[in-house]
């Protein structure tokens, strides 16, 4: 297999390099640029990538003749070396995510006329009888399902908070996480090239209803003026300090910022959600203002599966701050 091929059809590659592949797999050589153990991210993918390669090779080999190697479940777990796969060093982890479903589907696949002989040799590990059919073409359906399961597993390792066994919940978490990362990029790009230290334009003026200065500050990217103006009505400088602190933390480490907020009993949520909550329930629910400039709110506040990205709130400019004001006005006691 060659590295950097990216989008090359890996079946063609396998067919051409089959004899050499087994030894390569044994040595754990990665055909891609990914150096072994370069980072924890790549390490997480490596062993599953090897499995994927083995699976493919095995299926082709099993169709062609009497390949003595059979992939049992124990093999699936023991991989530690790196292998190769398309799409830039993403990999799969050995365990199918949902063994019951996977087993049923594989049994069905076994019975279906599409299953190749190599497949069935694989299923010997699952206790089904093995036929021997010569099929050079790998069974797309079964392979696909395995790949999906492997990728889900890899994603599960990547995304925090991913102890869900349900595919739908897992997808929810993944969606949340990607939205969160995108939001973080947005946040970071707001404070970039800030010039003066301590510029924190990220902080919303949720707590500042009726604040006219939020709209007014629209240049120099300095949100401090907005913060200063916004917090006058709110009972003093404590909130302002909190907001600035949160903004500073957000620039450095999102996790710390979240923890800080949670320690104060606050959370991030999209403005639309905040306004929905504040309008739907009593104001006591929002007695402590949520600093809702951005963010995927996790946990109970999250609306599962909503694809809309939360509107980003600036300290200045445009529709966003108007939305803040409305939400803030709604939420205040």
């Amino acid at each position, binding site marked *: 297999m060659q590295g950097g091929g990216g989008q090359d059809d890996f079946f063609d590659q396998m067919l051409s390099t089959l004899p050499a592949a087994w030894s390569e797999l044994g040595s754990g050589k990665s055909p891609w640029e990914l150096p072994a153990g370069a980072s924890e991210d790549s390490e997480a993918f490596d062993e599953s990538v090897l499995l994927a390669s083995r699976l493919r090779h095995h299926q082709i080999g099993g169709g062609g003749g009497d390949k003595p190697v059979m992939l049992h479940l124990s093999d699936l777990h023991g991989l530690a070396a790196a292998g190769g796969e398309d*799409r830039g060093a*993403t990999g799969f982890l050995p365990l199918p995510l949902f063994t019951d479903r996977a087993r*049923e589907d594989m049994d069905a696949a076994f019975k279906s006329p599409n299953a190749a002989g190599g497949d069935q040799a694989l299923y010997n590990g699952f206790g089904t009888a093995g036929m021997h059919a010569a099929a050079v073409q790998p069974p797309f359906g079964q392979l696909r399902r395995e790949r999906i399961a492997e990728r889900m597993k890899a994603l599960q390792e990547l995304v925090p908070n991913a102890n869900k066994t349900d595919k*739908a919940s897992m997808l929810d978490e993944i969606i949340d996480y*990607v939205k969160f990362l995108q939001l973080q990029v947005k946040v970071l790009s707001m404070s970039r090239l800030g010039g003066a230290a301590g510029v924190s334009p990220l902080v919303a003026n949720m707590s500042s209803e009726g604040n006219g200065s939020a709209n007014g500050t629209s*240049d120099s990217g300095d949100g401090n003026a907005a913060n200063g103006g916004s917090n006058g009505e709110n009972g003093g400088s404590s909130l302002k300090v909190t907001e600035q602190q949160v903004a500073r933390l957000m620039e450095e480490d999102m996790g710390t910022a979240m923890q800080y907020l949670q320690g104060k009993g606050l959370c991030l949520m999209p403005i639309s959600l905040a306004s929905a909550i504040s309008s739907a329930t009593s104001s006591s629910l929002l007695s402590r203002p949520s600093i809702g400039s951005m963010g995927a709110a996790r946990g109970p506040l999250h609306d599962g599966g909503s694809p809309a*990205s939360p509107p980003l709130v600036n300290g200045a400019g445009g529709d966003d701050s108007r939305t803040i004001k409305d939400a803030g006005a709604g939420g205040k006691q």
Partner: protein
Amino acid sequence: MPAGSKKFRHAILKNLLLGLIRKGGAAAAASRGMMMSFHERRSAIRHAADAALATARGAAPRWSRSLAAELSQDRRSGRDAHLLRSAKSAASSSECRSQSKMTCSSKRIPRRTLRARPKSKATAKAAGVLARVMVRKRARALREIVPGGRGTDECTLLGETLDYAVSLKAQIEAMQLLLRTLQAPKNPSGKSSPY
């Protein structure tokens, strides 16, 4: 360049710096001078960051090409156009092949699920259908988030999401590093300790 490596992070940082310097130069030459509105500056920085990410990642993953395409549509950024063009020619043919195969099997999968041996046929079928509907909904949501997610089957989508998430993390780290360096002029040298 693969998504998980340290070189990737460095490449993003380098591209980002270059892009930002370029944009700063362009803004100074523009009529408004350096006083862009907050909004404009934020989108300029975001644009530079995304361009840095896409160029550092290269043309291999689908989302990278799609992101480059979006960026070159927004503005007249020449860099992403290069990436896009080179990527298209290299990847389109093989992608078509793999995509067609994928679409074939994507039709096969649901049918196979229906034929699976259920404990009691009716409830299992209903559960299967419901599960698939839920998954479809979420797959749709995921497609809208990940650039270039449209027109990909579920398997590719998951792989793209994985790569995209890792790359986003790297982008965020690079930006945080840059931010920390720029906004922490405590040392006399003006640089903070290495990340």
